């Protein structure tokens, strides 16, 4: 249980303020770095073609001399598919999360800043989007160009922005009520300065956390969509799709199913450790 006394700041002021690099943040950064190396250097370093099939080496268990991580149901190298899949999934998850986060945060700040009917309108529309099944959005966009990335990720972004909006609005509203905003404006600074120096730093950590979760959600959503055969076209190596493809082989090749899931897990975990806080 935490201590009952909050000591006045100046009593313990000589203690070094906890530095930015906490242990868990460091661990997160290291995992993240390793994943990034795997995803972005892997495809260049590994010669195996993620698409080349070898019907004589199907579902080889991991640990094989030729296929370190084994092979999939078509005898494709799991290592190659995972690195390529990770690259694609990470980049796309990053794009999705970014294209959800930017408008989400911007609108959240706008709502908190302008208040009144602007805020009410934005909140109402976010509520409506929230109540729409995300699948419907994705499906609609996919109908225009089936099997391509653009609409798939745009659809996901359209549905993920709400969470950014909600949190950003609440955080921004909290910042805007602080006297420091009034004080800073009165000193002659503009809203730009407030945005840069006050709002964005205050939003950074909660948004980073949300971002981590949004990236995870994006990858998981793609795999969920693959499971109902809406989404990417085979044979594209994408982590979520790899899970779906291998799922029927869960009893013959459990490791192969777990590998892409582990990659997604490590991505979310590392981002979360790095962000250091949880979703609100």
């Amino acid at each position: 249980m935490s201590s009952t006394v909050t000591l006045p700041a100046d009593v313990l002021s000589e203690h070094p303020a906890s530095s930015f690099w906490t242990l868990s943040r460091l661990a997160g950064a290291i995992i993240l770095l390793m994943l990034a190396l795997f995803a972005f250097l892997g495809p260049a370093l590994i010669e195996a073609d993620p698409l080349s099939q070898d019907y004589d080496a199907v579902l080889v268990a991991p640990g094989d001399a030729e296929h370190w991580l084994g092979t999939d149901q078509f005898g494709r190298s799991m290592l190659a598919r995972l690195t390529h899949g990770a690259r694609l999934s990470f980049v796309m998850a990053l794009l999705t999360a970014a294209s959800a986060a930017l408008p989400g945060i911007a609108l959240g700040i706008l709502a908190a800043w302008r208040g009144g009917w602007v805020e009410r309108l934005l909140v109402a529309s976010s509520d409506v989007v929230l109540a729409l099944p995300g699948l419907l959005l994705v499906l609609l966009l996919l109908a225009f160009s089936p099997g391509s990335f653009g609409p798939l990720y745009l659809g996901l972004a359209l549905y993920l922005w709400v969470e950014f909006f909600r949190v950003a609005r609440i955080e921004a509203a909290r910042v805007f009520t602080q006297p420091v905003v009034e004080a800073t404006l009165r000193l002659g600074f503009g809203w730009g300065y407030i945005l840069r120096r006050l709002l964005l730093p205050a939003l950074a950590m909660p948004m980073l956390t949300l971002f981590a979760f949004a990236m995870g959600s994006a990858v998981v959503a793609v795999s969920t969509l693959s499971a109902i055969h809406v989404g990417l076209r085979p044979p594209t190596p994408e982590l979520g799709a790899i899970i779906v493809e291998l799922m029927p082989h869960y009893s013959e090749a459990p490791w192969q199913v777990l590998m892409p899931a582990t990659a997604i897990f490590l991505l979310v975990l590392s981002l979360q450790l790095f962000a250091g806080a949880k979703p609100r």
Partner: protein
Amino acid sequence: MKQRLMLRLMQCVAVVLMVGTLSFALMVALPGDPAMRIAAGRYGPDMMNSAIADQVRAELELEQPLAQRFVVWMGDLLRFDLGHSLVTGAPVVDEIGLQLGHSLMLALLAFAISLLIGPTLGALAGLMPGSWMDRTTLVLATALRAVPPFVLAVLMMVIFAVTLRWLPTAGFGSWQHLLLPAITLALGLAAMSSRVMRDAMVRVTREPYFAHARLKGLSDRAVVQRHGLRNASLPVFTYLGLQLVYLVEGVVVVESIFAFPGIGHALVHAIIARDVPMVQGTALAMGGLFVVLNSLVDLGCVQLDPRLRRAA
């Protein structure tokens, strides 16, 4: 409170309009001839041919201009005439009526189970931030969120149905059948609520009233029970609103794996068969479910938080 419920009502109307418009857009945008799709849906792929499609086209007046069809479509929608399923030919309302009951049961049970697991673990973690308990729940929660729900579903089946044989694998009709899908859904939900609860608990333990409750002589247990849990539950409850999305979305995949006849199952099939009236109907039902559950959350928040209650 009245105002909030009014807002929810307006949200409902907006959802109906949005779903209607999107569904119409979907109908028009889907590749291929709608008459053909409808015919294929009705009579199966092996039976369908263009002659039948022509019959359908004439029957449904698909030759009308787009704007006119849109007006008719929305008009029908606002009169709660959701049309007929392209696949079964039965009125969509009838089909959804059945499915909604099943889904509602599943969703509520999942919700209840997740409330049992998530906040409990979250509270424990929050009372001991940095402990092994905290770290374990973090990793567990992340893992549960990183694993697609269908993988989790298969895992649950392998463990509880095939290996232990405690629960039926799939199907519906008894409460035993509800348990596995509900737990699968609940785990995902619990993963998130446990983290929210954990943070809320950490924050509450730093509140002066929490410290003072100890100083006034209450045991640790009493402090947590009387002052920790309720206050920490407030943000969790508010967050439930967002979590419900996960529930409603999770229903989609979980139901189809567990052969459970809910709206999620229906949505997946409607999507695979491009059965737009059913897509619209199920989307409406899910949107409605979301709004209704959210209203319940609103009510719950008011019950939990006297500040809101007095404001009501």
